């Protein structure tokens, strides 16, 4: 039996929700921005009118206003509201399948193989979902329908807003292969440059490139991307039941000022790690791995991870290792705009201690951190802070409980 996968993408999600909740701005150029005071004042999302003025995600508010010939409406982001609306939309998806895998707040894959026998059935279901989202939620989605996740995702990007795009085993060479290779999932800026050097311009070029050459230039990822281009992606859509099992804890933040030194980066990593460790302790989890996500001022980002010698939920251990990852991997060509700390490979329950670290030492650290967390719970976050965060006044205004976002797109590979 064939697979029928949908990928649904809410069009201009943040800006559409704002326009929905404020009818007065619906026919104006609208951008959703971060907190200007805390220097998150960049464009996070825009509606089609703002887009027509070439306003881009990542523009500063000042740049966006310069580009816009008409009055530009700037609304502050309301993540709680977006999460609420996202949940309502995903509840609709779950009426069709228990295999719904979120890809960020505004995208999801839905496996409807049990409902559809033909592509006509699958398209009809996609159209039904689109119609329901318009009438029940007031938003539009673009849905890609295909036999695998990668092409379904590609399909949802092809026509916006409010469209269903079908990519089948029969038409994917005509529809997909002419597209620029950058349109393929997981072809980022670095990979794209390598392809450029190899004169691989389209997804078709990639599909027709010798796999040995790709392996040589891109390693394992070259083989994976070649498979994607040829329609060979058998990765399953993760079911909601699998999702309930916690796989990682992560926090990220866009800093109030660009970070220009290792000391500043270290401060933020410690702050993020504290927030992650606090959540882990509440749920009694220990991590065997940590990962660090870094975004520079060009909005280019990467993630690096490492395994730990023994599991931990101590913020200092998490921070120390993440800082090491930073030092090993960042070349300071550009300043740092945003950072994220994540712990992976989790275990729960009783802790097995490191052979070389005494039980007393671990428990001592744990007791100390619990005491700090209790103090903060009773008297507020600012009651006790690390000395290193006070080196920069702008950074010390950051409060992980209100400024750090736990909205991560779940990585395509991490979800497996």
């Amino acid at each position, binding site marked *: 039996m064939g697979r029928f996968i949908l990928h649904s993408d809410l069009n201009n999600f943040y800006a559409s929700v704002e326009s*929905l*909740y404020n*009818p007065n701005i619906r026919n104006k150029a609208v951008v959703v921005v971060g907190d200007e005071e805390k220097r998150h004042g960049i464009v996070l999302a825009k509606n089609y009118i703002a887009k027509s003025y070439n306003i881009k995600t990542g523009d500063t508010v000042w740049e966006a206003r310069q580009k816009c010939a008409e009055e530009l409406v700037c609304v502050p982001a309301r993540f709680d509201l977006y999460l609420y*609306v996202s949940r309502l939309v995903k509840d609709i998806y779950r009426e069709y399948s228990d295999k719904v895998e979120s890809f960020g707040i505004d995208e999801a894959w839905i496996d409807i193989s049990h409902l559809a026998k033909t592509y006509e059935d699958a398209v009809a279901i996609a159209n039904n979902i689109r119609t329901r989202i318009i009438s*029940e939620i*007031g938003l539009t989605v673009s849905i890609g329908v295909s036999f695998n996740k990668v092409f379904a995702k590609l399909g949802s990007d092809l026509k916006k807003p409010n469209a269903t795009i079908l990519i089948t085993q029969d038409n994917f060479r005509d529809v997909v292969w002419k597209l620029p290779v950058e349109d393929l999932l997981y072809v980022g800026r670095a990979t794209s440059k390598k392809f450029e050097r190899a004169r691989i311009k389209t997804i078709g070029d990639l599909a027709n490139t010798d796999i040995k050459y790709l392996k040589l230039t891109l390693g394992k990822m070259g083989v994976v991307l070649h498979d994607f281009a040829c329609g060979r992606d058998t990765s399953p859509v993760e079911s909601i039941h699998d999702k309930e099992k916690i796989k990682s804890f992560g926090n990220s933040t866009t800093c109030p000022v660009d970070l220009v030194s290792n000391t500043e980066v270290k401060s933020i990593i410690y702050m993020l790690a504290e927030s992650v460790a606090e959540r882990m302790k509440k749920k009694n989890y220990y991590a065997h791995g940590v990962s660090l996500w870094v975004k520079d001022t060009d909005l280019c980002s990467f993630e690096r991870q490492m395994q730990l010698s023994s599991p931990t939920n101590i913020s200092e251990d998490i921070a120390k290792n993440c800082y090491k990852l930073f030092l090993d991997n960042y070349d300071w060509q550009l300043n740092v705009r945003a950072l994220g700390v994540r712990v992976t490979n989790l275990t729960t329950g009783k802790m097995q201690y490191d052979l070389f670290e005494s039980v007393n030492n671990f428990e001592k650290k744990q007791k100390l951190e619990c005491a700090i967390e209790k103090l903060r719970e009773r008297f507020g976050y600012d009651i006790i802070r690390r000395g290193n965060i006070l080196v920069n006044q702008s950074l010390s205004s950051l409060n992980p409980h209100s400024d750090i976002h736990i909205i991560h797109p779940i990585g395509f590979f991490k979800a497996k």
Partner: protein
Amino acid sequence: MEKKYVKVMVEIDENGNKKPKTITFNNHEYEIDKVLDMKKAVSMKVGGIGERYTVRINGHETYLYFENNKWFVESH
């Protein structure tokens, strides 16, 4: 038109179904004669998403919305 949150008296049956009985609007309590329909819907007029109850009050049909644990009407 504006989104106006209102106080609502609700009857909840043994299965958890809600049946609004009265709404208080501008300090007046209005009795709901009949709930004609309920479905999930958006209010494009004032901006809101939730359960939309079509209700009859004094012979007039109007919409009453239940959104995120609060009730609202589309007020002129």
